[in-house]
Structure formats: structure tokens, C-alpha cells
């Protein structure tokens, strides 16, 4: 019962986020006009703004936020480390290096996205191969390999920024901070998110067990090696997709899983879908603010996720302690 109320509240939050996002902006559109536009009866400018600009961007923001949150929650389980986020193993670093290279080469649009996605996959494969060693795949080794490679990617990013001509720098920095303005809606990230959510009830209890340590998990009948491979692949795929769509938006993947744990506990069967909805909504609100707060100028959304997320998290943490 408690769970149904929770999900009803989260869905309402998502809906409010979506409506706010569709109605606000430099062109004010009323709720009724949004409804007309969505049902295909709108007129002229409003219809185009809603359907071609705001709706794709809002949906992308939600999907990216949800994917990052899922990836963060999975990484925290995989590494059994509360400080893990989707980027801790360098997936975003690989994507960023590839994306910056593409920008330097003058590529944009789909080619840029393709480069980012390939970079993310390359980084994932690199960590996986190097941390595998001879047979043993320990959490410690995975974490160390990933963190060291992430540092390497970071150095490459600085190197590329130092080389880049001044005219290209703002675009590159925006990409690095996370930016949803080039978002065009494609269905496959949404499908990936739905697939991830559909897996949650099957994986959730096993994740709860895995958190208790590898030996205990095996003693309770879990094939932990196979599960850890699966988590790694899923988390990397979610991260790669999110980074491809919007650059490396920080904070959501680290904090929203914890935020959800503070609210509802750590049963992953509930935690995964609930945190995905919360992460999606948070990014949706943050993006709406990012493009309205100092309109017509836009802020990188990653700045706002942190500005909203930090106080929100600290307040909840303080309340939870009492």
C-alpha cells in the first residue's frame, strides 16, 4: 500500500515536471494550448514550439535523468561503494574524449553522438579487460582500474581543451558540463529505460543479496559472477546512452539513489523504479530552470542539478539522522 502511494506521488511529480517544462519558456504557452498541440489541434507557432522543441527536449531530459540514476544505483551495488556514480569507472571520460575529438574535427549532430557512444563503449571494454586479469574479477580491482583510467581520460580532456581554438571552447565546455539543448528525441533511449525498469523486479532481490558481500551472496545461492557482469553491462549501457544524449551531467546518478534510499529504504525492487522516476523528474525540473532562469541565455543543466541537489540532499540527510 505504502509502495502504491509512493509511486502515485512520483508519477504525479513526473507529470507536474512535464507540464511545467512544456508550458514555460521564452514563448508562454498555456496548459490548454499544450493539450491542443499534443492532440494535434493546435495552431502555428505554439504547436511547433511544443511539439518540435519542448516535447523532445523534456522527454530526453527525463530519460537521461532516469538512466543516470539507474546506472548510479547499479554502480553503487556493483562496487559496494556509496560514492560510486555512473562516471566513476571512466565511461563518461571515454565518451568526452571521443566527443571533443569529434568537435575538433568539426563534426556535429549524429556523428558527434556516434563518437561519444563509441568512446563510452571503448572505455567500458578497456576497464573490463584490464580489471579482469587472470580469472579473478574482484570489486577492488575493478574500482581501482576504473578510477585510474578515469583519471587518464581526465588528463586527455584537459589536453584537448588546451589545444582547442578559442571559438570552440564554449561548446566543448557546455558538453562537458552536461547540456540538453541539442536534444532531439529518438525512441531507443526510452526503450532502453523501459527495458531497464522491466528488469528491476527480477534483479532487485539479487541486488539486495549482492550488497551483503560476494561470499554471503554465493552462500545464499546467487551466481554472483554472472550477476556482476550483467550489472556492469547494464550500468555502462545506461551511462553511455545518457552521456551520448546530453554530455556528462553530474550529480544525478550519485545523489538520487541515496535520496531515494533515505526516503524508502534500500530494497532494490522498489528503489530502482522509484529512483528512476525521481531522477528523471529532477533533471526535467533542472532543465526547465536551465533554459528559463536567465532566458534567452541557457545554463548548462549540470550546474543546476548540483545547485538543486546539494541542498535537497543535505536537508534529507540531516532529517534522517534525527
Amino acid at each position, binding site marked *: 500500500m505504502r509502495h502504491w502511494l509512493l509511486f502515485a506521488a512520483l508519477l504525479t511529480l513526473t507529470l507536474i515536471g512535464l507540464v511545467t517544462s512544456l508550458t514555460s519558456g521564452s514563448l508562454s504557452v498555456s496548459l490548454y494550448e499544450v493539450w491542443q498541440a499534443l492532440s494535434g489541434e493546435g495552431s502555428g507557432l505554439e504547436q511547433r514550439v511544443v511539439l518540435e522543441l519542448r516535447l523532445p527536449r523534456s522527454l530526453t531530459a527525463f530519460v537521461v535523468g532516469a538512466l543516470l540514476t539507474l546506472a548510479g544505483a547499479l554502480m553503487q551495488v556493483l562496487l559496494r561503494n556509496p560514492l560510486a556514480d555512473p562516471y566513476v569507472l571512466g565511461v563518461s571520460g571515454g565518451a568526452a574524449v571521443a566527443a571533443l575529438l569529434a568537435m575538433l574535427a568539426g563534426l556535429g549532430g549524429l556523428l558527434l553522438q556516434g563518437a561519444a557512444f563509441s568512446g563510452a563503449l571503448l572505455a567500458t571494454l578497456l576497464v573490463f579487460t584490464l580489471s579482469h586479469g587472470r580469472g579473478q574479477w574482484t570489486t577492488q580491482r575493478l574500482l581501482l582500474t576504473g578510477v585510474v583510467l578515469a583519471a587518464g581520460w581526465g588528463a586527455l580532456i584537459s589536453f584537448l581543451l588546451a589545444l582547442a581554438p578559442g571559438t570552440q571552447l564554449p561548446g566543448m565546455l557546455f558538453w562537458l558540463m552536461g547540456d540538453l539543448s541539442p536534444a532531439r528525441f529518438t525512441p531507443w533511449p526510452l526503450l532502453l529505460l523501459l527495458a531497464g525498469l522491466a528488469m528491476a523486479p527480477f534483479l532487485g532481490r539479487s541486488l539486495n543479496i549482492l550488497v551483503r*558481500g560476494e561470499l554471503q551472496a*554465493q552462500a545464499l*545461492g546467487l551466481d554472483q559472477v554472472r550477476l556482476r557482469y550483467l550489472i556492469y553491462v547494464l550500468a555502462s549501457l545506461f551511462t553511455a546512452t545518457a552521456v551520448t544524449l546530453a554530455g556528462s551531467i553530474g550529480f544525478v546518478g550519485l545523489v538520487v539513489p541515496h535520496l531515494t534510499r533515505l526516503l524508502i529504504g534500500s530494497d532494490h525492487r522498489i528503489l530502482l523504479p522509484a529512483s528512476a522516476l525521481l531522477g528523471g523528474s529532477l533533471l526535467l525540473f533542472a532543465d526547465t530552470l536551465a533554459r528559463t532562469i536567465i532566458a534567452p541565455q541557457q545554463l548548462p543543466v549540470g550546474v543546476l542539478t548540483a545547485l538543486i541537489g546539494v541542498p535537497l540532499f543535505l536537508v534529507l540527510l540531516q532529517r534522517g539522522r534525527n
Partner: protein
Amino acid sequence: MKLGVHKLELQRGGKTLCRDFSAEFKTGQCWGVLGPNGAGKSTLLHCLAGLYPAQRGNVELNGQTLGTIPRRALARQLGILLQASVHGFPATVMETVLQGRHPHLRAWEWESESDRRLARTTLRRVGLETLVERRIDTLSGGEHQRMAIATLLTQDPSFMLLDEPVNHLDLHQQIRILEDLGTMSGTENKLVMMVLHDVNLTQRFCDHVILVHGDGEITAGPVAELMSSENLSRLYAHPMQSLPGPHGPIYVPG
């Protein structure tokens, strides 16, 4: 039902802990495992639970080689209490104890009311019925240990291996838990095998004993045959005397 080892050889960190060890452990028996620090008691238990590979020889559960039994099926029959436990993210006592039902449930299934009833029963059994909704990071060492035992009881396997079950327990709880485990082997027809450091508790509650010497020598047999001041003196490399006591001989280190 029985757990058998055949010509078992175990190594850890380059040291041979067990050589050419064959024995049979049957349900209905209560085994104590004794030996000095680092002799390989935990390694032996882990090997019997399929968590540590044998260098040579094999372990069989009812005639089937342990490695060929899928983990989930194995966990329905055999469970182990580990010495060290890992705190994950905050969870309640009830949630943790219910994890014992994991091997009995299908991937998508939720714990049923009867699973919860079983968990509540085992929590009562270890004296934690008032702490059901407590968060596990607020438990004391002894309470945490009893919760881990309750998780194993909720898993409800026929073969129960316990690595130092009385760690952190006060005197009363030690006797209470060991009495329960000892009688349980008979009344519920389970194999109970536990690593203990107290020879007198072993003498009192176990009917069989494994002496792990640490140099590769392991002997297994009935308490009446193996427990003697000579054997224990040799095992711990420390002189032991035996005195008559209310539950049989009492061993006192010299």
C-alpha cells in the same frame, strides 16, 4: 542425507591445511570443529559449502559432487554462517533475515506471509523478536551475530555450517544458542557443524568433533573417542588437564 569428503587436500597462502582427509557427516549429527588460529577451520567450512576450491579430492552432497550442483539448488540444502559479515546499505533486521528465503523464491517472487512467519519464528528463537524493525547498523555485536544465525535458520537448510556462531555472544546467549543448535540436529534431522574455540562447549553440545591441526593433519570422529587431554594438548600445543564436571569432563589449560 550426508555430506562426504574424499581424499581432500586444501591449501591457502601456500600452506597445506588439510591432506588426504576423508570423512562422512550425516544429518542428525552435531559436529564441533576445533583447532588453533590459522589451522584452516574456516577454509574447511568454506570448502564444504562450495565457496573454496579443493586442491585435490572432492566434496559430495548425497553422492553428488558439490561443484555440479547449481548454487541456488545447493543453497536450499546447505547454508553457512560466515565469520565476517558485510554491511551493505541500511536495512532492517526483518529485511535482512528474509534474505535467507532467497534460494527458495523465484527471481520475480516476493516473500510471502509464510516466509515472514518463518522469519519471525527464527527471530524469536534467537531472542530478537523485539528488534524486528530495527536498522541493522544500530545493533550490537551480539545482536548482529544472532540476526545472522536467524538468517541461516530462515534459509532452513538440512546442512548447517557455522563459523564461530558464539562470537560476540554473552554467556547466557552462548548456551541458549548452542543448546538450540545441538537439539535441532536431532529433532529436526539436520547436520550442524560449527567452528568453536571453547573445548568445553564442544564437549557439552557436540556429539562429533573434527580436530584441525594446521599442519595438514585432520582427524574426525565421535567426541567420546577424540576428546582427551592428550589430544587437545597436542592440538593446541598447550598442556590441558581434564577434571570431572556436571556434563562430562572439563578441560582446563595448564
